């Protein structure tokens, strides 16, 4: 799988699939050892194991950044 993250202008690792790339967000989370499910009220993806549902994602204007280094 191609690298789905870029470094944004704040120096953080930002997902380049935007907010609705459900497939890649799922695929990445499935292989991620740091994945941690967020509070139930903050879940937005139907596939539970998805970067979009991860405690360590921080939403940005266009996507999210991963706070795990």
């Amino acid at each position, binding site marked *: 799988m191609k690298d789905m993250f870029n470094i944004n202008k704040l120096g953080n690792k930002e997902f380049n699939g935007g907010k609705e790339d459900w497939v890649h967000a799922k695929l990445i989370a499935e292989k991620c050892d740091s994945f941690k499910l*967020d509070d*139930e009220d*903050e879940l937005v993806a*139907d596939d539970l194991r998805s970067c979009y549902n991860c*405690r360590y994602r*921080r*939403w*940005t204007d266009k996507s999210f950044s991963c706070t795990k280094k």
Partner: protein
Amino acid sequence: MQILLCIDDTDNIESAGTGELAESIAKTIEEKGWGKCYGITRHQLLIHEDIPYTSHNSSMCFKADIKSEYLRKIIEFSSNFLLKESATGSDPGLCVVVVDKLLDRQKLIDFGYKAKKCVLTKDEAYKLANDLNLHLSEHGGTGQGIIGALAGVGLRLTGNNGRFKGKHKINADHSILSVKELCSYPGIDIVKSLDGEIINASEMVLLSEKVKTVLLEDKSVLLVYKKNDNDGFWNNCTKQQLRSY
């Protein structure tokens, strides 16, 4: 008297969420006999690089019917609670509005909507709180959470914003229930389609997702959709469908 209580920016990535703290405050109000609390709503605010939120920039608000003599106690308790329970590095804010004493409802609603589109300042929040005769206080860090707390109350006042915290427990031995059965559960006032159509009591809903409601027209609404026009039953909406609420 009826109050709205909203908190924001109480957490960090490792701590309990703001919703859990709101739930604890509501529980204490009831346990102490200060009043009766109603559903907690989550209100999404602007995501912007200039706003120092933890991960999603949302505030949590609930309505309560209280005895007026306990207003001061509720504010004191909530303030001390936030000071004690908010996470390291957070910037908690508290807003409490006595609905009948609010001087200009529309101005507060406008602030709420503005906080979804613009970067606002603490000065703007304090000025509005002062003008409108409501309680707004900060409890640690930069106190930046007062902006979201004030905005959250404004958005709750609209009666048309936010998802209710948590999910409804449906104690049924089958997953297809009538609208009438669903509306007999506390916290489900009405069932509507995504297009806004009110679904008749006799229609059937297949529950295949967590049952969550949203705040629409001051009601707790279960949203449903049809996967296929030929299906005889409705489906409750998925997380992805509820994301924009």
